[in-house]
């Protein structure tokens, strides 16, 4: 049985391969960018409030910091308790033009030993977990200079 590919959160990212992008929103009045997306109101206290328009975020950024999760996180993170825990890496990435830092998991196989603060990374499509019917998709950060 083939699984349906479903984003873990609706509307946060879209596209395939090189066209994969995180999706935020931008206020038409003050140009503030929001990720996760704000669709109801602009959070800039000095803004009279404009229309919030979906906007793709820059695919490339630089590592602001990084860490890993050596222990199994609690629910609602989904893991298979039957399997031994495999740590994964988290990267906080600064996007230059949006001047925002976005957290994400690193692409599988990337460890903290592969990373330095300031290194360039690119957003790539990834899989968070799978259950019987669904492949839950997400975004990953991939260092541009490191093979996955």
């Amino acid at each position, binding site marked *: 049985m083939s699984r349906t590919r479903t984003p*873990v*959160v609706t509307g946060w990212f879209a596209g395939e391969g090189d066209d994969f992008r995180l999706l935020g929103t931008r*206020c038409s009045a*003050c*140009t*503030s*960018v*929001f*990720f*996760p997306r704000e669709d109801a109101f602009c*959070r*800039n*206290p*000095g803004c009279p409030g404009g229309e919030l328009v979906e906007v793709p975020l820059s695919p490339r950024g630089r590592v*602001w*910091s*990084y*860490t*890993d*999760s*050596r*222990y199994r*996180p*609690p*629910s*609602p*993170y*989904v893991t298979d308790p039957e399997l031994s825990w495999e740590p*994964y890496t*988290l990267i*906080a990435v600064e996007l230059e*033009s*949006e*001047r*925002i*830092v*976005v*957290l*994400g*998991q690193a692409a599988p196989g990337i460890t*903290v030993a592969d990373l*330095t*603060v*300031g290194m360039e990374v690119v957003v790539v499509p990834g899989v*968070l977990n799978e259950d019987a019917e669904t492949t839950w998709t*997400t975004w990953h950060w991939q260092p541009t200079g490191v093979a996955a």
Partner: protein
Amino acid sequence: MTGEVAVLGVGMHPWGKWGRGFVEYGVTAARTALADAGIDWRDIGSIVGADTVRGGYPGYVAGATFAKALGWQGARVASVYAACASGAQALNTARAQILAGLADVVLVVGADAAPKGFFRPAGGDRPDDPDWLRFRVLGATNPTYFGLYARRRMALYADTLEDFAQVKVKNAALGALNPHARYRKKVTAEEVAGSAVVADPLRLLDICATSDGGAAVVLSSMDFARRHGAAGPVRIRAVSTVTPSYPNTVLDLPDIATDSAAAVRPADGTFRASIARAAYEEAGIGPEDLSLAEVYDLSTALELQWYEDLGLCGEGEAVKLLREGATSLGGRIPVNVSGGLASFGEAVPAQAIAQVCELTWQLRGSAGDRQVAGARVGITANQGLFGHGSSVVAVR
């Protein structure tokens, strides 16, 4: 200046993993504080509870729960939720009632029975909650955020793992002197280095545990304190409970991203620094006036961050301050002489109240082996989820 309130009494239930309910810890702390104040519970005009938390949400109506357990006596009641800053906001609610003339003497209580393992969000499928989302989408536990901050300091300021370990060594040695602390054993740098990595670069002994505990304070108006015969009580001179300024450019718990600074220039200084700045301004003092500080060392590296956010030293200079011994007992500005969260573990709604208990004992000169000589002015600092933080200035 806002006006001062008197700290008539303080009390704590020791921190630990006692396997009992939070009400019992809170009542023990409350009765101890009332006895310390020499006030009968039936003479308390108002009770403020810091809400007990399960992964980000008030699980119980704390003020009324404690009032019922102590015996209903008709007092005004309030319950406060502000994540890790709940205790300080409860103190501030009490202070505001006193300064507004709504109550003469107020009991503030916070207590928690912490769950085993990582804090986690409340159950259910709740994609509209940022705290739920960071666990579902990223598995980002609290220690992973501490790991990000620690690594960032290593990259920016060349802090080392050995520096982080020295914070634990300092705090464990002080906690060993504190009968209310959960961990009362000295720790060596080798033991820190030998403990398991939880969230690179931080190890188990770099990260504070979650604990059971309870803390309570009896506050009154200065007039009431005089009538009560409390000569020269410790006074609370400032309670800062400010929120961040947009755009908040530090990745704070439980957020997946910062605000964007593309359209609006960020304010000078971080949210954490603004928490302390507001306390200094309200108290009319500066960092040079401090005798001691109790800061929220959720991790060893975060204690160093607070040195800078409190203005005890310049940006990137925290390790220098630590290495000089300035923040040790006997140093220029001792930090976390209680032993800090490193020795207590975090009992969320009680912790910011416990910080004020320590300031009170220090300012009274009754802190025993961990006494800061001649302590006159103390500050607390803390930060929690969802844009909450606090700083309390107490003087004598």
